[in-house]
């Protein structure tokens, strides 16, 4: 292969096409991964609003409230946080994931709000994977040490890792004396968790309490659920206290880690924290900015079309579908070989059909062409000059649109009123051309041409009216570059058009 061959127009365009495909693929991957864009237009992201309402009654001049809040989670990202605490100085302690409210001279029942908007995310936030120092073996009495040993012995017969074994023992052998001795008859989940931590500490396994909230629409609770986290096999694992299952199920959010209490109120009494959960939905595109921010890809996002005002976005969304429509027209003309009136007339017609709806648009358009041709045939007898004549047709079309729209509105029929969406000049030219074709080449050719034009418009319509197609062309607008190179490459297509195969059928060797 010579150098010249390597750089033929077709080759160069092919290279560019391949490059553009690679680029578009990368961008699609990027947008899905970091911006959370979805392939489907119907996909929505759940946004959960968690309200934590802290209330208490002050008993001294100075009130010091510490509320533990989430900041890192496996399945969720924080969309926004909101604190309502009138008259309090608020400090956020990011290191310990706490919010500290300080108040002075407060009287009566106090209410503080902490609001959190979170959404599920595809990527995993990095959890605190730091290796903890192993806890010191608790100082235990002889008797307690014996209990520990017995429990660990019992655990041997259970399945799973060490933590799961202990959870199984606690849950399943509650009647076993060595268990009933360490756990009081009435015990809370917190009691169980603390006991397990103690048992694990005996083997110097680091463990901690985790407070989680299950996201359920309309949920109200005073107590978060409790799970256990233990450091096993070089990583922190989360365990369910009842089943021993590892990992956080979907729709659970970790609120706080470690032993400290969720709410600590100094200088107050009867303190409670009430959680309420509400759900709302947002499209992935609306969430993109937050996702980009969370993934440190904000700079890139800010120069995308998705940050424009909605009006501009909608216009662009409309434009983004043009290249695909153009591609369809090019394919139909140069590869299939359909001859239409005007190159892009069918495309513009299909655009109108999108606005009018398929059937109403088609019927309305047919009515307009029919009436237009009728009028044009009458006017033909007047022998007007070309420019005034086509101008007459344009004005006639305008009047027709006006009339049909009014009639359609009065009859409450979208069938007729969709006339307003058709491009006036295009419609006028179709009428003019059809009428000339009629005079010169007969009705058959005219009907054939109109049919071809409509057929092309209909095919284009079905491609561009598809929700998926429109969403994808807008969300992954890099595809337009791919289309550009496909169209250019089609400009070098020298194969037969499909219609030529029948046209030239008589030139096929008969003996073959």
């Amino acid at each position: 292969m010579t150098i010249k061959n390597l750089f033929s127009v077709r080759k160069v365009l092919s290279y560019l096409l391949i490059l553009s495909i690679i680029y578009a693929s990368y961008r699609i991957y990027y947008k899905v991964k970091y911006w959370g864009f979805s392939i489907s237009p119907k996909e929505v992201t759940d946004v959960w609003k968690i309200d934590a309402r802290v209330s208490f009654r002050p008993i001294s001049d100075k009130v010091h409230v510490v509320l533990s809040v989430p900041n890192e989670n496996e399945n969720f990202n924080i969309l926004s946080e909101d604190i309502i605490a009138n008259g309090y100085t608020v400090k956020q302690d990011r290191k310990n994931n706490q919010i500290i409210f300080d108040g002075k001279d407060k009287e009566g029942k106090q209410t503080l709000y902490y609001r959190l908007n979170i959404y599920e995310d595809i990527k995993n936030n990095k959890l605190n994977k730091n290796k903890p120092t192993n806890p010191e073996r608790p100082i235990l009495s002889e008797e307690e040490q014996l209990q520990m040993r017995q429990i660990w012995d019992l655990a041997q017969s259970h399945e799973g890792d060490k933590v799961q074994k202990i959870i199984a023992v606690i849950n399943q052998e509650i009647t076993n004396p060595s268990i009933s001795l360490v756990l009081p008859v009435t015990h809370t989940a917190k009691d169980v968790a603390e006991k397990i931590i103690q048992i694990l500490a005996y083997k110097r396994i680091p463990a901690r309490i985790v407070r989680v909230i299950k996201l359920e629409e309309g949920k109200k609770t005073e107590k978060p659920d409790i799970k256990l986290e233990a450091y096993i096999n070089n990583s922190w694992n989360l365990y369910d206290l009842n089943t021993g299952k590892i990992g956080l199920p979907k729709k659970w959010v970790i609120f706080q880690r470690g032993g400290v209490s969720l709410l600590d109120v100094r200088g107050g009494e009867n303190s409670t924290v009430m959680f309420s959960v509400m759900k709302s939905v947002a499209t992935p595109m609306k969430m993109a900015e937050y996702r980009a921010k969370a993934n440190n890809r904000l700079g890139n996002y800010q120069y995308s079309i998705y940050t424009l005002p909605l009006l501009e976005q909608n216009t662009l969304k409309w434009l983004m579908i043009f290249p695909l429509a153009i591609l369809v027209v090019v394919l139909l003309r140069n590869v299939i070989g359909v001859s239409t009136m005007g190159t892009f007339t069918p495309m513009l017609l299909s655009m109108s059909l999108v606005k009018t709806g398929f059937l109403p648009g088609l019927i309305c358009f047919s009515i307009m062409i029919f009436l237009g041709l009728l009028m044009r045939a009458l006017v033909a007898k007047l022998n007007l000059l070309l420019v005034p004549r086509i101008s007459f047709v344009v004005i006639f079309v305008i009047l027709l649109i006006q009339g049909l729209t009014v009639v359609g509105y009065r009859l409450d029929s979208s069938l007729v009123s969709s006339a307003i969406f058709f491009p006036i000049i295009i419609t006028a030219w179709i009428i003019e051309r059809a009428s000339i074709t009629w005079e010169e080449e007969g009705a058959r050719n005219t009907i054939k041409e109109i049919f071809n034009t409509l057929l092309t418009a209909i095919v284009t319509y079905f491609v561009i009216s598809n929700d998926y197609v429109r969403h994808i062309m807008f969300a992954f607008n890099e595809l337009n570059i791919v289309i550009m190179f496909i169209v250019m490459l089609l400009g070098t297509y020298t194969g037969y058009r499909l219609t030529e195969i029948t046209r030239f059928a008589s030139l096929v060797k008969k003996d073959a």
Partner: protein
Amino acid sequence: MFSWIKVAKQLSENGVLGMNDRNYSVIAKYNKRSLYTLVDDKVKTKKLANNININTPRMIGIIEHQYEVDNLLKIVEGYQTFVIKPAHGSGGKGVLVIKNYDGEKFYSAAGEVLTFKDVYQHVSNTLSGLFSLGGRYDVALIEETVNFSDVFKNFSYHGIPDVRVIVYKGYPAMVMMRLATKESDGKANLHQGGVGVGLDVKTGETLRAVLHNKPVTIHPDTGANLMDLKVPYWREHLLIGALAYDMTGLGYLGADIVSDKNRGPMMLEINARPGLAIQIANGKGLKTRLKEIDETYPTGLSAEERVDYVLNK
């Protein structure tokens, strides 16, 4: 689907030139855009042709502006028969043949009786660009009618039969004759129902004839045996084609030639993007011919030499 691919493959083996291939590999390559203006304007073409002694119908006059339309009668004074055509027309659009003008009524070749007002209207439509490419302003060309040769009397219904010579790099590559039928309404365009007769480049004799892409042997209206067709002054026909190349520089062109009873073959127009129906009329692929010319025909010959080369091949 597979049968399509099979047919496409066979067409390709038979050297059939497709529309895309024509546009990309032939026209874009050998027909410079700037040369189009030479053939788009029939007045210009006629002048060029007369300069190098190509026979064309004599010009009676031209009407360039709307106010000149009134002069029409003065221009055609003394002519009993004449043709009005748009200088920028194509495919026979807007050509009005007046067979008989008795000083009052105009009798068209299509059999209509027209008043001055009708003809006036036609000219004015022509000027406003109704028949020209892209609808731009045009000029009406009035020329003498062709007294078409009796040789073809039975071969055409009403309209004038013409010979289309495809000239590639100056060599006549493929030829067909187009005959009007009742269906084609005096026009000789194949897609309007005209008969296409493929002619042997060397002899001007019928190879085969088609109507609506299907082979025929007799004219549907006159019943003439199309196989008997032999174009006289064959060399002159080819020479017009070869000269058209010298005159325009278009590597791929179609020259339309009619035979006049008294003046012999005359060039009517040159087409810079001649269609592909000629392949159907000839039953042969054009690409094979173009390739043959590309690879084996000598370059640097004069028009006469090229014609002789083709005739003696």
